[in-house]
Each structure stands twice: as structure tokens, then as C-alpha cells.
């Protein structure tokens, strides 16, 4: 079986759907985006893009997260972000810190559309359902409690 065929099969198994291309993630809108409040305008990029707030259909679903763990390997995410998302040439996804926001919708955008410095856009390959499956897995990763401080002193 070709790698592509194997991938397609894997996706079908994990996602439980072998339908055609997934719908776009957000509804297109001709209305102007909501105004930016003063408190928000200094947090550039920290607010959800206009055009509808995305919600994760599988939020905190442990079974979906388990499928997402397989997808994380199958889509070669671990090749850059390390096994378990612990960080490699790409940043750690398990430290509770986020360049582009850690809410489900923000992680969705990073995976679906890609990010600068080499994060590919996976929306075209995975569709919305596949991306949400990955989001659910990534958001399920436990965050260590003492991330900010490393100490080598004897207590």
C-alpha cells in the first residue's frame, strides 16, 4: 500500500469518516469585524479572528484525544514537535505556553493555516475534523507544574 493510501485509511479509521473535502472552518461573512476594544488592541494576535468564534466539537473528549495521539504521529507532527509534543526543532506543546494562543480555536488556526518559521498548513490534508482531533489531543497533554524554574541547588 502506498504511504498516501495508508494515511487515507488511517484517517478514515481515526476520524470515522471517509467523505470528501471538509467544509471551511468558519462561515464567510460580509459584515465588518467587531471593533477592537482599547484593552484588546495591545494584545495583537491574541484575540480570535473575526468571522465567527470556532468551537471544538470534541472538546476534552478523551477518546478523540487518543485518536489524536495516533494522528500526531501519523501526520509526522512528532518529527518537529517531539514525541508527546515535548519539543524538538518545533516548540514544546506540553509546557502550557503558546506563541499563538492555547485555546482550542487558536490551536486549530495554527494547525489549519500554518504559522511562520516552518509550521505547515495541515487544513488541506486533514480537513476540519482531523484538525479538531489533533487539537483535542494537544489540549489533553498534561502541563508540568513547575515549568518556570529550574534549580540545581540542593534543597
Amino acid at each position, binding site marked *: 500500500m502506498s*504511504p*498516501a493510501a*495508508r*494515511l487515507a485509511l*488511517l484517517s478514515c479509521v481515526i476520524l470515522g469518516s471517509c467523505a470528501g473535502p471538509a467544509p471551511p472552518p468558519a462561515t464567510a461573512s460580509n459584515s465588518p469585524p467587531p471593533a477592537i476594544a482599547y484593552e484588546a488592541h495591545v494584545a495583537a494576535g491574541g484575540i480570535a479572528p473575526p468571522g465567527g468564534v470556532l468551537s471544538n466539537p470534541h472538546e476534552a473528549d478523551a477518546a478523540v484525544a487518543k485518536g489524536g495521539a495516533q494522528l500526531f*504521529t*501519523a*501526520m*509526522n507532527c*512528532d*518529527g*518537529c514537535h*517531539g*514525541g508527546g509534543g*515535548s*519539543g*524538538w*526543532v*518545533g*516548540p*514544546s506543546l506540553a*509546557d502550557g*505556553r*503558546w*506563541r499563538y494562543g492555547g485555546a482550542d480555536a487558536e490551536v486549530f488556526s495554527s494547525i489549519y493555516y500554518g504559522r*511562520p*518559521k*516552518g*509550521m*505547515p498548513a495541515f487544513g488541506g*490534508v486533514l480537513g476540519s475534523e482531523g484538525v479538531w482531533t489533533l487539537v483535542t489531543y494537544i489540549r489533553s497533554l498534561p502541563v*508540568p507544574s513547575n*515549568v*518556570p524554574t*529550574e534549580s*540545581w541547588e540542593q534543597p
Partner: protein
Amino acid sequence: MPAKNYAATRYSGLALINAQNAHSLRPVWTFSTGVLAGHEGQPLVVGETMYVVTPWPNVLYAFDLRQEGYPLRWKYRPDVSSNALGIACCDAVNRGAFYANGQIVYNLLDGHSVAVDARSGRELWKTTTADLGNGETITMAPLVVGERVIVGASGGEFGIYGWLKALDLKTGRTVWTARNLGPDADMLARPDTFKPPYDGGVDVGAKSWANDSWKTGGAPVWGWISYDPQLDLIYYGTGNAAPYDPEVRVGDNKWSASVLARRPGSGELVWAYQFTPHDNWDYDATGAMVLADLLIGGRPVKALVHFDKNGFAYTLDRATGRLLVAAAYAPVTWAKSVDLASGRPVIDPARQTGVSKGKVTGVCPSLEGAVSPSSPPAYSPRTHLFYTSTNNLCMDYGAAHASHLRGTPYVGADTPYHPGPGGNLGAFIAWDAENGRKVWEDKESYPSWSGALVTAGDVAFYGTLDGWFKAVDARSGRLLSKFKVGSGVVGNPIAYRGPDGKEYVAIYAGIGGDWALLAGDTRSDDPTDVRSPADYMKDIARHTSQGGIVWIFGL
């Protein structure tokens, strides 16, 4: 040139700094490159100018060594894509530049090769050499032979179809492209002129890969190239076979993890020798091929010496590729020995990996290599010894299915590291390649990731991962001087004579080059990427943090 000479010996004939006075070495100048990634490679001194290439964004600095404080003559900032940062497997490194014919030639991470006027800093040409979208980046230093600029690509973790190219020095135009695997026609291998000493046959570069897996088989070129003008052969090593699960590419996987000898003018393949047939362990053979004239069993031989990731040091006849000596220079468990008659390793079946085998434990060396190919050795014709950094790490290897998605990693393995036997994680050693034996060893607490330099003053130089730059007696290994240089050393020392007639030694500080090695807790510039230390090396971040600095030492 990057390795001092075409033979890649990294031997300097200067002797003003010697074993008697090296204890007085002191820093005379430093410069922050403004870049944080791993500073592999080495400065290049041409006349009264020192050239320094940084990791991505691949800035080229030209320092005026005639003036106090070595002010810049110019700096060149190429247009280089930030997307390359996510395509480089391990770090955004660069291994150096080459000077030829008034031009500084080097490669950009995003797959371009550039030539810059050495006097003015003006860009002369820029050629797209590698395909970033296909997972190819360029980290290696080019080699110029006559009118040819020889270049290869990284991407063994992206399932590339590995190649070597020659560009025209004047125009940058691509003259020939030779694949490192695949059918003879792609490899520029002709039956009448391609004479491998052991395993050959028509299209062996394709037939030794089940199910046409050569098409995504890797075999990148991210290390060093050497050249013998008498034989008119260039020598270079190829990287790992892709993906990391060997069961999807049954066969020898020629010519991954191999050394290839080609004609620089035409690219024609003359011989090839495979160090690790059917690579199960990510044992790239991209380390330097050092050319030296040695006495083997009393007979003078034009030899090629190579310290492989797989833990064996090889001495070959560089005219034919025939194996003369092979001996372990670090702990090895994947093979018992290398058979001189067949040229093949005697494999331990219990260390064969693959998805069907699950987690295979106790594989030595680790996939970081018994030495990193980015840390080239040195050879002194005075002591007849080779000097190299080593790593003392072993690993478990759990292969997993990987899907080939163009431009994403094609890896599939979980490979935790463990310290090897002996309590030290690295060393700097002197090696007798005529007899295959270690002469002395300076143990290091951490993996040793710098290149080596040896001089006619019988001093050998190297740096450590915890940030010491060291000078040792080339005959005994005795420490002569050390200085803490601000960040871990993964670069290669050079010696040169300054405009004032004095001898100087230069080295980069700047830990990096491999994220598994670094754990990521030596990084401080990104508050959104905060990692735990590596479990085999919990305290490296206690001693060093990222940061690129050029150092010059003198008496």
C-alpha cells in the same frame, strides 16, 4: 577552505603556539554574532580578513584584521526564508564558507547557494540549489574544485532523494546533478567506470531498496567533502536511509550511509563503499573523509580515514575504496566487528530494529553518533595521529510507521538516550588509524561536539559542550590551557597567522546543532517554549545557554 586543505586534515603548520607556551594562551578579541542557533563550522581567514557565516539568517561578516578591534569591512545579509527553520531537522546551523577566485561561496538554509565578492561584499550570484518544499535545506560548507562548486542537501529526516550538485564558480549555473541512490543513470554511474570494491551490479542503488523505496530514501549530504588532486576524486559521505523503520526498505539501501568517490568535473561515480548496509539506526556517514598517506602493514597507502556515527573508525584505500582497517573507537553493540574481506559489519541480530521488533534496547552508539558528523577530526603528519571528539551515548530504538508527506518529517522512531559505560558522556581522543587503536583519551562530562585542530606546535584544540575551550598536548593529551567561552562549543577551531606575524587560534561558542542533545532548556529567548532537561543530561543548562560568539586567542 573550511577544513584548511583539500585533504581535510585541519592541520596548521604554525608552531609559534606550542606545547611549551600554550599555558599562556589568552583571549584577545570577541564578537557577538547576534544569532542564537548552534554555531557549527569555522571562521575563514583569507589574507588580512576573517570571514564568519552565522546560522540562519546566514549573515556573512568580513572583519579587518589589520585594525585595532578588527572592525567590520562589510556585512552581507542575504534574503533567506524563515520557513527553512521548520524544515531543518535539527537546528538552523551553517558549516562554513569557501574562498576561491576572489569569491566567498556558501549555502543558505533555505536551499540557495551564493557567491559574494570577497573585497566588496557584493552578491555576485545566487542559485536555487535545494527544494525547501521537498524537505531539503542546506547546512554544509561547499567545496570548490577548479571551476566547480560542489553542494549537497540536508533532509534525511524528510525522505528526500539525496543528491550532490556542481555549480559553475563564475555564474552559479548548475553543471551536473548526481543522486546518491537510485538507478545508475541518476547516480551518474557507468558500468565501465564505476568500480565499487565490494557490492556492485547494475542499478544497485535502486535494486537494494524494496518497493522502490529509494525514491524517498534520504541519503543526504550535510557533512564535508575532500579532494585528492592526483587521483582527481572528490570524497563525501551520505546520510541515513529514510524512514527510520528499516522494514519498509528491505535491502542494503545503497548508497545511503556510504562514502562516494566522484570526478569533480563530470560528477561521474568512480567507487562507493557502504559503512552501514541497511541502516537500522540513523547512522549517517556524513562525517569528514580525511586524506592521509599512511603505512599499513609496512606498506605506504594513499588512505582515507573516517570516524563513522556507527562507532567504527575506517581506514580505506582512497584509490579503490577497499577497506584496510576498521576498529571501534567508542562503545559499539549493533555489530561485533567489520569483516575486512567482505567490507561488511558482523551484525548483532538482537540489535536489528523495525516496527515488528518493538522497542530494541541497548543500542550503542546512539543515533547522535559516536561522534557527530558535524564535528570533524584533525590529522597531524608529525604525530601520525588523528584527533576527534566522541560521544558516549547509547539508545533504545522503537521504530514506528511513518507516512511520507512532502515537506514534513519522514522519521518514525522513539529513541531515548542513555549514558554509555564509564560515567563520562564524551571524550577527546587521539587515534592511530594505521593500527586501529586509541592512543590517549581525555574524558569529558558531556557529549563532545566540537571539531578538532592540531598544529605543528604539537597542540590540539577543541571545545566542550559546557563551554570550555581547551588546548592539549597532541602527544599525550595533557591539558595545557582552558578558558570558559560563554556558551557550549559545537564549532571547529582554526589557527592562522595575523597581519602582525603572530599566531592566533579562533573558535565559535554557541551551543546548538541538535535539539535532542540540548533538551531545549539551554534556550532562554522564547518564553513560549519552556522545556524540561534531557533525562540523560539533567544539568547542561546549569553551565551554558545559547549565544553566538567568535573568540580569538593568542599569546
